[in-house]
């Protein structure tokens, strides 16, 4: 990459992708790592145990049918097991209580013993006895959609890098990229699997309200989550940086931290843009090469179709096509596919022209003369010659896709789940005054689009 601007663009884009990939670790209301005790759960169990004991006592006192008493006893046993599970009492003591309970099972006269046995459990469970949870709450709360996205982003980053270099990677590097994606997924899944599922309950809200007590904790840089609402702080401008946990970029109408939403939305926006570019590349390349190689009526048909699609104003077409989608809340992949479905035309045109040129090249003739099979020539010479130009065209397309998608979501026509994209975030501003809501996403859109445009500009063929 001789051109410093291209290198810079690739670096910036890589940094944005890395930030998007790491967003859950950078901005989250759950800690990265915590040594915590779920006090609330333990308290709940304690309350339930007390209630079950009262129930049993009442059942016995009312001298009702044996079935009622035995139901109450089963309930008591269950409540106790739950409390035991949430405590950190030693195994020996738990076994002792359990065996004693089994002894008292069918003996109403041993009620007093039971009460005395359970008394320490009903008092305020000392903190050391509350069950410890050690691990990563963030990882425990990652869902499958997020995992898929996390796997996709490195692949897309590799595509960006190769486009910047302007040359196709050798075969084995493609396997490296796939291996990288697979190992990313495995690493995340593996890390997640070793977490206790209850860790997902550890977050700033519960820590604040002493429902969870943390002994040791590692918080992310921004301690707000993207979905954490706080109505008392709605529409607040950036400021108050001396407070603990400030909102660096202010909040939106529901008190959600704008910076956190920006970071989490980056993954979706970048994914849509790069996915749209990749799909448009694949589609355009396929159609372009087929047209160039087959010729004849198929070629003419496709050329007319491409001309038509190009003369339709894109936003209008997108608006109409978006009407196809159920409601206005769409998965991000759908938006990407829609954008790609219209944007493949420039790539196809370019590839078709290139294919026609390559077919007639003299070095291809020289190979034909010698009797090298047509299929070999196609795979090894003609097709690879068309890819670099197509890839740069796709990068350019991805750049425009960012802008188009931003416009569509700003207009409110496409709201992605689970996180809104940059455009939608800008649209939530609902007015000029709340600049902290529409300016940062717009700047990020501009930055991403600019980087992709730079990467997508045709590099000159090397001259002798």
């Amino acid at each position: 990459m001789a051109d410093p601007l291209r290198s810079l663009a690739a670096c910036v884009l890589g940094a944005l992708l890395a930030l998007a990939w790491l967003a859950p670790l950078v901005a989250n209301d759950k800690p990265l790592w915590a040594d915590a005790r779920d006090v609330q759960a333990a308290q709940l169990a304690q309350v339930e145990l007390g209630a079950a004991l009262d129930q049993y006592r009442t059942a016995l006192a009312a001298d009702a049918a044996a079935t009622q008493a035995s139901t109450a006893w089963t309930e008591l046993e269950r409540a106790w097991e739950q409390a035991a599970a949430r405590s950190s009492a030693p195994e020996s003591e738990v076994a002792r209580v359990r065996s004693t309970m089994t002894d008292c099972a069918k003996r109403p006269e041993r009620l007093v013993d039971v009460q005395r046995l359970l008394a320490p459990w009903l008092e305020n469970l000392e903190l050391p006895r509350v069950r410890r949870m050690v691990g990563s709450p963030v990882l425990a709360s990652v869902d499958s959609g997020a995992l898929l996205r996390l796997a996709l982003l490195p692949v897309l980053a590799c595509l960006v890098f190769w486009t910047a270099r302007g040359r196709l990677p050798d075969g084995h590097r493609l396997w490296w990229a796939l291996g990288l994606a697979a190992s990313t997924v495995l690493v995340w899944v593996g890390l997640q699997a070793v977490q206790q599922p209850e860790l997902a309950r550890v977050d700033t809200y519960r820590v604040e309200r002493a429902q969870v007590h943390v002994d040791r904790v590692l918080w992310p840089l921004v301690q707000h989550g993207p979905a954490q609402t706080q109505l008392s702080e709605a529409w607040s401008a950036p400021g108050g940086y001396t407070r603990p946990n400030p909102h660096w970029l202010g909040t939106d109408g529901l008190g959600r931290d704008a910076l956190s939403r920006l970071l989490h939305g980056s993954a979706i926006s970048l994914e849509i843009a790069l996915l749209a570019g990749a799909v448009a590349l694949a589609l355009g390349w396929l159609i372009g090469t087929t047209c160039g190689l087959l010729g004849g009526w198929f070629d003419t048909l496709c050329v007319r179709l491409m001309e038509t699609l190009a003369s339709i104003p894109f936003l209008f077409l997108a608006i109409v096509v978006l009407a196809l989608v159920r409601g206005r809340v769409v998965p991000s992949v759908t938006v990407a596919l829609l954008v790609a479905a219209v944007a493949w035309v420039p790539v196809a045109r370019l590839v078709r022209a290139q294919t026609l040129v390559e077919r007639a090249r003299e070095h291809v003739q020289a190979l034909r003369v010698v009797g090298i099979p047509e299929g070999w020539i196609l795979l090894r010479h003609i097709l690879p010659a068309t890819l670099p130009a197509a890839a740069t065209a796709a990068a350019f397309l991805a750049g425009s896709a960012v802008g188009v998608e931003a416009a569509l979501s700003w207009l409110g026509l496409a709201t992605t789940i689970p996180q809104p994209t940059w455009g939608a975030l800008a649209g939530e501003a609902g007015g000029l005054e709340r600049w902290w809501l529409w300016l940062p996403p717009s700047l990020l859109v501009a930055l991403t689009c600019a980087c992709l445009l730079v990467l997508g500009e045709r590099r000159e063929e090397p001259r002798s």
Partner: protein
Amino acid sequence: MSARLVRLLLRLLVRWAITVPLVVLIVVLAFRLAPGDVRALHSEGAEGRTATESLSSQRFAEEHLLDASVWRQYAHALGPFDLSPRGHRWFGGDGTRPWHGLLALEFGTEWSRPQVRIRDELAQRALTTVPLALGAFVVALLLALPVSVWLALLSTAPRGRYVARLVSTFLLLLDALPGFALALLLVALLGPQGTNWFPATGLDSREPQLPFLLDRAWHLVLPVLALSLGGIAHLARQLSTNLLQLEREEWMRAARANGLTRAQALRRHALPHALPPLIGLFGGALPALVSGAVVVETVFALQGLGSYATEAVLARDLSIVLATCTLAAVVAVVGSVLADELVRSLDPRSRQGDVTHG
């Protein structure tokens, strides 16, 4: 000369004949496939509609062929015959409204507001959008050329190279900034909350202090800027790159050998070469301008074609969407054909083929 005009018109007609039916088909199909019950939105019983001003659900469906086959819907949308029960006699109607469709330039009435004729509303809204798009087009063309020449000259001067790099990057960011952000920035800087040089909403002031046309123009300044600045940045960058590439051509060197300064050589020799591909770009810019107008109209609260289409899609009004999309496609085709023609006429090499006198 007139033969060329005839050929041009023929080419235009052919392109229209291919493009427009395809656009109509896409719109009709999209609406057929879209989920949600259209009639529930527009007929009696829908929110805010009284019995007198809306038709019953049954009649609404008949009126607008909602249950008809796709071919019937398509033919009705394309025209020129009206295929509804009140349509042309040849197709089973009672003849009250024989004409309908694009070919008849008759689109019926709005589904949500049956007293409004779409054609009238279109004409009125076009009066907003057309000056906007045209103004942006002209401004872009006028500003892009000098900026690009200046940029090209600057980047070849020994010390100007870094300034040129900076300016080029600034233009790149301007180009990459999404339309709504640019519009909002302009309003923030130059509008009522900023320096208050220009108004930020609507087309007319309540108490105009200027004559009507000037007042209109004053209101259009910010929207036109918002629409054209991105395009100017893009064109200027593109043009200056082309100019610099052209400077390495042999005939540029020859021109310098004839005593022209670098600026003169760029202006007199390189610019005419760089223009044709750019004019071709302009042909494709018209659809982009129409698209960009959608966002600009929303920001500046202008009642134009773009916002008309957006509202119509949200309200699921097929007639309006059809009318606006096909109009946009027709205009786009005109732009593209004119651009091709202009490019052809600028390059003498393509005029009569290669006739050698040797």
